C-alpha cells in the first residue's frame, strides 16, 4: 500500500472537530495574570508624559510597563536592513514617540483581563501631535521623519539590472508606457488573533505557549532582545488558528508578556490580542507602487524588456523588511521569457502599521505587476489575452531566469488550455459579444502566477551582505520510543496545513506500515521537538524542505533498524523486509517466518543492551536529519543566483460582470488550475488552493486597509475590513496538471501561497470589462466604491501611451 498521493483523512481533525485543539489563548488558570496593551490613538506623536499611578493603584493590578522599563530591559530588535536601518530602534513599546496608530505605549498585567483593561484606561498619556506621512512618495521626500536617527525614511534602494535593457528598447517595435500601478494594502487576517502565555521564572527560564509561525527564526531575534541565551528560551505552540505569514512577527509583542511576568515575580502572564488591535497593530501585507514603467515589445507582441521604478511601503518599522525588496526577485520575469530588466527598487517607512510576510509575500506584488503589464500591452496592441500569454510564456525547463533563478519545471500553455476548456472560453467570448451589445460590462481575464517554495536565505545577503543567513533547512527527528512506537518530531509548527498527516504518509511508505501507527508531535517546541534556525511554516516550504527532512530521517532510521535486525535475525540487510506482522510493525527475513518487532528492537537498544555487540554501538533508533537544499550564496554584486528551489504555478481565468447600477464586480465563472508537481495528499493540496483563491478574491473585492491622511486606519474592525464570507465566495472550478520537480526527492513543489492568482485574474477580467470605457486597471482593489470612482474618471489617456515604429525602418 502506498500512502503518498492519497487523500488520507487528516490526523489533526480528531481533536479539532471535538473542540479539543490547544490554541494559544486556551491556556487558562485562575492564578495567571492578563495583559492589556495600551495603544496609541495617533499615527505620529511625541509622548510628553505618561502617568501610571492611577492604574497601578487599582486593586488587582500586578504591574505596569512603560517605555522606560523597556529601554532598561530590552535591546532593540536586530534590524535586517543595511545602513541606515541599523539606526532604527524597534522595541516592544514606544519609548519617546509613536509612529503608527495602534503602537503599544504601555502594558498592564492584572488578575483578570477586565481589570487590566480598566487599569489601562486609567493611564494618562500626554501626546504632542506630529504631522504624519502615509503616502510613500511623500515619505521619500523626508520632510517628515519617522526614525530621526536614521535621518531618512528610505530603508532600501538599489537597481536590479539584467541583460541589455537600452538595446532592447532601441530595437523595440513597440514601447508601452504605464505611469502608475498600485498594489493595495491588505492581509490574510487569520481568525485566531495573536496570543501567548509567558512565564519567566526566578531561575531565569522563559517559557512561551504561543502561536508564532516561524519560531526557529523568531527565537534568534527575541532571545538577544531580552538578553537571554537561546537555551533559556522555550517556545511552544500546539494548534495555530491560521497564520498565512502574519504570525511570524508576533514575538515583538510576546516580549511584553515575558517582561510583565518577570516584573511580577515569575507569574504566568497571558496576552490575547483583540481583533482591532490585530488590524491596527499586528501586520499588513506589503503595499507597492510601480512608477514610470516602460515595456519594450517586438512586432509580434513578445516582450523584450521592462524598466520600472518600484516603491514598497513597509509601514512604521521594517521588521522582516527590507527582505521584501529582494524576495520579489525570486520571480523576476514571472512566467515570461523576458531577458532584459531594469528595476529601480526603493522602500520607505510610513506612519502605518508595519508589514509582515503575508501569503504570497512580495512575489505576489511583483507577479501582479507583471500580469498587469502583459495584460495592458495585450489590450493596447489589440492582441487577444490568451495569445499574448502564449507568445510570452517560458516553455523550456529547467529555465534560468536573467537573475540566475532556476525554474524547475512547468507547462503554462497546458494550464491555459485546460483552464480555457474548463471555463468554456469560446462560449464566454460569444456571450461577451452579446453582453456588450446590450451595454453590459462583461470581461474575461487570465492570471498566470508562481508560488516559489523552499527559498534560499542567501538572498538576504543581496540586501545586506553582513546578514548571517543563507541556504534553507528543516529538521526531523524520528525514533522508536521505549515501547517501540514510531514518534516523529518536526520544527515546522503548522497552522492548518496538515503536517501530522502528510508526514505520516511519507513515514508509512518508508516503513511499510499504516499511518495510524505513527505519532507526529503537534506543533513547535524548542525543548521537546526538532528544529533549526530556518524552522517554521512559511514560504511554501513544507512539501520539499519538511518532507525531505522526514524522508532523510527515515533512511537513517531504516539503516539502523536493518543493522540491528540483521544482527538479531542473523540475516543480510538485503534479505530484510519492512512490514507489519502479528505483533505489529516489524522487520522480517524474506521468505521465512523469522522477524523482529519494533518493541523488541527498541527494548534491545534502550533497556536490554547486553545482548548487543560493539558493531551496534552507533545504533540508537533515534535519529535526526537536517535537510539542506543545494543552494549557494548568490553573487551579491550582480544580484544573481538561485533564490528558490521549486516553482509551483497557478493559472486562473475569471469572467466578471460589473453591475452598472451598483458598480459591484460579480464573478460569473471562475476556473483555477494548479501545478505543484507531485501531490502528497490531494485533499490537503486542494484545500490550500481553495484557501489561497479565497484570500485573493477577498483582497480584490472587499479587503483593504484604508488610512486617512493623518494615519487613522479606517478599516480597523472586521465589520469595516470585511473579510470574505461564504456569501461572497463564488463557485470555483478546480483542476490541476502535474509537472514533477526534478529538484525534490519526491517530485513535489512547495505550495500553499497561491501566488495571489485572483488578484491578477480579476484585475485582468475587470480590465477587459472596462477597457472600452477608456479605463486602465491600475490598482489591485476593486470594491464597488473604487469601481464607481474609476468609471466616473476614465484614465486611459493619462495612464498609458504606446510608441510604435516599423522595425527595420531605421
Amino acid at each position, binding site marked *: 500500500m502506498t500512502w503518498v498521493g492519497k*487523500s488520507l*483523512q*487528516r490526523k*489533526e*481533525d*480528531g*481533536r*479539532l*472537530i*471535538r*473542540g*479539543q*485543539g*490547544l*490554541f494559544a*489563548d*486556551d491556556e*487558562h488558570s485562575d492564578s495567571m495574570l492578563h495583559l492589556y496593551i495600551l495603544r496609541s490613538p495617533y499615527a505620529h506623536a511625541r509622548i510628553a508624559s505618561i502617568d501610571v499611578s492611577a492604574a497601578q493603584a487599582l486593586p488587582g493590578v500586578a504591574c505596569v510597563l512603560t517605555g522606560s522599563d523597556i529601554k532598561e530591559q530590552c535591546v532593540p530588535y536586530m534590524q535586517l536592513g543595511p545602513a541606515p536601518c541599523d539606526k532604527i530602534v524597534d522595541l516592544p513599546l514606544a519609548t519617546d514617540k509613536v509612529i503608527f496608530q495602534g503602537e503599544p505605549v504601555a502594558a498592564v498585567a492584572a488578575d483578570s483581563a*477586565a481589570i487590566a483593561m*480598566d487599569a489601562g484606561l486609567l493611564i494618562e498619556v500626554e501626546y504632542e501631535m506630529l504631522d504624519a506621512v502615509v503616502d510613500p512618495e511623500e515619505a521619500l521626500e523626508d520632510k517628515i521623519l519617522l526614525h530621526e536617527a536614521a535621518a531618512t525614511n528610505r530603508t532600501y534602494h538599489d537597481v536590479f539590472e539584467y541583460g541589455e535593457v537600452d538595446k532592447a528598447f532601441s530595437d523595440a517595435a513597440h514601447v508601452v508606457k504605464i505611469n502608475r500601478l498600485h498594489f493595495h494594502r491588505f492581509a*490574510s*487576517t*487569520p*481568525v*485566531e*488573533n495573536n496570543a501567548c502565555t509567558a512565564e519567566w521564572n526566578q531561575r531565569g527560564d522563559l517559557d512561551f505557549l504561543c502561536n508564532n509561525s516561524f519560531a526557529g527564526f523568531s527565537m534568534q531575534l527575541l532571545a538577544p532582545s531580552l538578553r537571554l541565551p537561546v537555551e533559556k528560551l522555550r517556545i511552544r505552540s500546539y*494548534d*495555530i*488558528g*491560521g497564520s*498565512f505569514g502574519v504570525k511570524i512577527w508576533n514575538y515583538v509583542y510576546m516580549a511584553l508578556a515575558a517582561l510583565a511576568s518577570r516584573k511580577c515575580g515569575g507569574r504566568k502572564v497571558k496576552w*490575547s490580542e*483583540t*481583533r*482591532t488591535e490585530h488590524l491596527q497593530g499586528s501586520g499588513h501585507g506589503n503595499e507597492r507602487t510601480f512608477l514610470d514603467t516602460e515595456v519594450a515589445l517586438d512586432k509580434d507582441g513578445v516582450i523584450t524588456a521592462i524598466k520600472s521604478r518600484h516603491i514598497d511601503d513597509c509601514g512604521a518599522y521594517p521588521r522582516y523588511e527590507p527582505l521584501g525588496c529582494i524576495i520579489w526577485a525570486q520571480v523576476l520575469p514571472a512566467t515570461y521569457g523576458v531577458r532584459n530588466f531594469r528595476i529601480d527598487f526603493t522602500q520607505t517607512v510610513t506612519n502605518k502599521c508595519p508589514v509582515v510576510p503575508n501569503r504570497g509575500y512580495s512575489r505576489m506584488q511583483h507577479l501582479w505587476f507583471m500580469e498587469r503589464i502583459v495584460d495592458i500591452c495585450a489590450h493596447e496592441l489589440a492582441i487577444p489575452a490568451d495569445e499574448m500569454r502564449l507568445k510570452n510564456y517560458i516553455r523550456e525547463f529547467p529555465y534560468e531566469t536573467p537573475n540566475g533563478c532556476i525554474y524547475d519545471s512547468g507547462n503554462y500553455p497546458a494550464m491555459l488550455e485546460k483552464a480555457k476548456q474548463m471555463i468554456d472560453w469560446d462560449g464566454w467570448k460569444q456571450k461577451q459579444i452579446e453582453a456588450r451589445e446590450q451595454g453590459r460590462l462583461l470581461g474575461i481575464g487570465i492570471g498566470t502566477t508562481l508560488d516559489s517554495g523552499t527559498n534560499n536565505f542567501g538572498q538576504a545577503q543581496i540586501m545586506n551582505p553582513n546578514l548571517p543567513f543563507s541556504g534553507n533547512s528543516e529538521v526531523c527527528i524520528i525514533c522508536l520510543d521505549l515501547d517501540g512506537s514510531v514518534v516523529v518530531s518536526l520544527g515546522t509548527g503548522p*497552522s*492548518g*496545513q*496538515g503536517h501530522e498527516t502528510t508526514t505520516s504518509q511519507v513515514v508509512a511508505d518508508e516503513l511499510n506500515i499504516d499511518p495510524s501507527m505513527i505519532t507526529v508531535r503537534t506543533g513547535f517546541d524548542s525543548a521537546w521537538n526538532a528544529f533549526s534556525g530556518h524552522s517554521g511554516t512559511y514560504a511554501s516550504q513544507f512539501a520539499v524542505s519538511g518532507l525531505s527532512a522526514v524522508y532523510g530521517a527515515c533512511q537513517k532510521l531504516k539503516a539502523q533498524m536493518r543493522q540491528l535486525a540483521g544482527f538479531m535475525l542473523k540475516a543480510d540487510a538485503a534479505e530484510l523486509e519492512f512490514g507489519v506482522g502479528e505483533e505489529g510493525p516489524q522487520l522480517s527475513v524474506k521468505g521465512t517466518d523469522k522477524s523482529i518487532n519494533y518493541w523488541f528492537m527498541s527494548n534491545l537498544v534502550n533497556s536490554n543492551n547486553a545482548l548487543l555487540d560493539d558493531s551496534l554501538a552507533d545504533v540508537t533508533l533515534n535519529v535526526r536529519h537536517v535537510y539542506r537544499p543545494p543552494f549557494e550564496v548568490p553573487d551579491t554584486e550582480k544580484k544573481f543566483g538561485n533564490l528558490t528551489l521549486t516553482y509551483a504555478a497557478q493559472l486562473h481565468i475569471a469572467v466578471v460582470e460589473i453591475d452598472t447600477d451598483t458598480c459591484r464586480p460579480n464573478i460569473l465563472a471562475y476556473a483555477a488550475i494548479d501545478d505543484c508537481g507531485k501531490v502528497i495528499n490531494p*485533499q*490537503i493540496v*486542494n*484545500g*490550500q488552493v*481553495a*484557501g*489561497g*483563491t*479565497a*484570500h485573493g478574491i477577498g483582497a480584490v473585492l472587499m479587503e483593504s486597509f484604508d488610512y486617512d491622511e493623518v494615519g487613522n486606519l479606517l478599516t480597523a*474592525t*472586521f*465589520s469595516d475590513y470585511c*473579510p470574505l*464570507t*461564504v*456569501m461572497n*465566495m463564488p*463557485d*470555483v472550478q478546480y483542476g490541476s496538471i502535474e509537472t514533477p520537480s526534478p529538484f525534490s526527492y519526491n517530485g513535489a513543489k512547495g505550495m500553499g501561497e497561491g501566488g495571489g492568482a485572483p488578484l491578477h485574474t480579476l484585475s485582468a477580467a475587470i480590465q477587459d470589462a472596462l477597457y472600452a470605457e477608456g479605463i486602465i486597471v491600475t490598482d489591485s482593489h476593486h470594491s464597488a466604491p473604487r469601481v464607481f470612482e474609476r468609471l466616473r474618471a476614465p484614465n486611459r489617456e493619462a495612464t498609458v501611451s504606446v510608441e510604435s515604429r516599423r522595425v527595420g525602418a531605421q
Partner: protein
Amino acid sequence: MNDRILITVTVNGAPHEREVEPRLLLVQFIREELGLTGTHIGCDTSYCGACTVLLNDLPIKSCTMLAVQADGYEVRTVEGLEKDGKLHAVQDAFSEHHALQCGYCTPGMLMSACHLLETNARPTDLEIRKSIQGNLCRCTGYSNIIKAIASAADKIQEVSGQEVAGGNPV
C-alpha cells in the same frame, strides 16, 4: 463592578451555578469559568462567528451576549456534539470533506451547521451558505464546508430513513 450575580446556565446538559461579574461575556464564561475552550474568539464586532453556540437551540454569537443574560438558558457547545463516543454526523462530514484546516473556525461552523440540520432536513446550497454567513473561515475558501454540511444532511436522512424502515418509533 464587583457585585457578582448568581446565575445558572445549563451547558451541554449539565447545570452550572456561578457568581459572575455582570460584564462577563457568555463566551468568557464558557471558556474561562467552565474551561470549555472549544468555543473560540476571533473578533470584537460580532463578525467572525468563532464563538457561535446554541442557546435554547438557536445559534448565537456568545461574544455578543453577557453571561448573566444566559441565566436559566440551555447552551450547547462543540464539546456536546459527540454523544456516547459517537461523533455527530456533521463532525464526521467536516473531517471527511476536509472542511477544516487550522480548525479555529470549526466549532462555530459546526454549531451553525448543527442548527441548520435540526431545522431543515434538506437544505439547498443557498440555505447552507446562509446558515454559515456569520461564520468566517480564513483557511478553506468555504466550498468544502458547504459540501460537508450537505453530506451530513444526506447522512442524517439516510439514518433516519433506516430507523423508520426498521420500525423504530418516530
